[in-house]
């Protein structure tokens, strides 16, 4: 009787611990990373950071950014061109230049831009590969690397 109670208690404690661990240690299964999230991790995260807030004086925040959530084609053109300022923004104060990402495919850029427009509290429309392709027609010839 006592042994059974102890076993029950042990099972109960074990379950509680497992639940607590899951809550604390992030053991709850995460949804698989999307293509956009993987591309962000590879190309953007080291500068714009995991929370999309950038680094003050270094790289701008994309979280809550007004122009990041603005015209999709303008954003695609800027990300493919790189530089300090997009066509629609001429006031950046951060020190580090953004490289050009023209080497990414239309489909990858669409996934990536959709991701940054819909994460970090942003709530803009998805970007299609067709919109990226359209923006790409305005991209000049590739500079010498």
């Amino acid at each position, binding site marked *: 009787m006592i042994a059974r109670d102890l076993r029950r208690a042990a099972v109960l404690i074990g379950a509680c611990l497992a639940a607590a661990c899951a809550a604390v240690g992030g053991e709850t299964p995460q949804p698989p990373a999307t293509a956009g999230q993987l591309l962000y*991790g*590879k*190309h953007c*995260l*080291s*500068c714009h*950071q*995991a*929370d999309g*807030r*950038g*680094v*003050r004086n*270094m*790289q701008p925040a994309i979280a809550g950014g007004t122009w990041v959530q603005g015209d999709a084609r303008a954003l695609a053109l800027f990300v493919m061109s*790189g530089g*300090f300022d997009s066509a629609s923004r001429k006031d950046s104060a*951060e*020190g*580090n*230049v*953004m*490289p*050009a990402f023209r*080497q990414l495919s239309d489909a990858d850029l669409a996934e990536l831009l959709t991701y940054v427009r819909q994460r970090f509290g942003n709530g803009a429309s998805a970007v299609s590969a067709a919109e990226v392709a359209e923006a790409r027609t305005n991209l000049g010839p590739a*500079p*010498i*690397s």
Partner: protein
Amino acid sequence: MRISFIARVVSAAVVAVAGAAAVAADTDGLTLPAGFSAVVVEEGQGPARHLDVAANGDIYLGGGNGLSALRDTNGDGKADVVKPFGDVKGTEVRIFKDWLYVSDDVGVYRYPLKKGELAPTGARETVVSEFPKERQHADKTFALDDKGTLFINVGAPSNSCQERDRQEGSLGRNPCPILEKYGGVWVFDGTKLNQTPANGRRFATGMRNAVAIEWNPAQKALYAVIHGRDSIDTLFPALYNAEDNATRQGEEFHQIVDGGNYGWPYTFFDTKLGHRVIAPEYGGDAKKEPEAGKYANPLVAFPAHWAPNDLLFYSGKSFPAKYQNGAFIAFHGSWNRAPEPQAGYKVVFQPMKDGKPSGAYEVFADGFAGDMKDNSPDNARYRPVGLAVGPDGSLYVADSQKGRVWRIAYAKK
């Protein structure tokens, strides 16, 4: 029996809580070696950079919002009088004789320090101005020797002198034209006014950005800890991965000699291999070494991206003997280690004897950053950026997040 057990548990808990509170009160939540305590001098002047302390204990603080003068009138370490002054928003602040030398991104200036005045009322004079306006590595930190020779850090407006800065696969410009006007230390007569960069001479080169630059009066020599390069992984993914980028490019501590070349952008000191390697932009393969003897090896190579932002040789009298003439270095903390955990965000002590390292560095003050949510530098609670020694031998530390300034003191036990 049971009552006494509970009583003991409760009293132990009370002691633990009281103990924790006592520790927090003594160090403001910082982790310090035994016998040291910290008091908050001031907070509220905006993001701080460097600072200096006058012989009478008055503190001069620089930062993005401008300069301010702080005075503790009752000796408790806390500033009772705070006076913003002047119109220079920048980083460096140094007292030299009866002058307060300060800098912004394009010049070095000075204010007269008159007896009895806290905030200078005299006119600002220009020592050197008209450095080109740049957006990257533009802070003109400087050091002054005992004669007033002015050594200015002119950081390179570039990561690694690529044809296209920070562009994946872009190769290095060779020779790097940036080195003609940047990426080194330029020397001036700091007692002359209204100079331009043309009045200076390139003293040393191959330094990406030597924010932490200091004259060592005991050695009569110049020293610097240099910000190493970023992004070897994203720029050259076939050669380096994210862990390599987070760990291999040392933050190099050098004695800076006239005519010295410290290797940027052609090389960096690989702390994993323990030797200098050719940068990937210049044909490096992640192990190839440059010609022997061409570039100085560092006295110490600190971990990648820690961001050394101030250097100080301890000349005070109140810290234990081992600190005498040793080097304190304020590491502002990393951003480019992401997605690996960020690091730095601490004040380190490097033991020195006769101007050379005499042992392994140790962490002196830590706990600035807090839990830094999302591994994001902007979420750091504090970031140490400036160091100074007061007349009583206390070490002052300034923070760039909130502008907090601490006085760290030692009490013999």
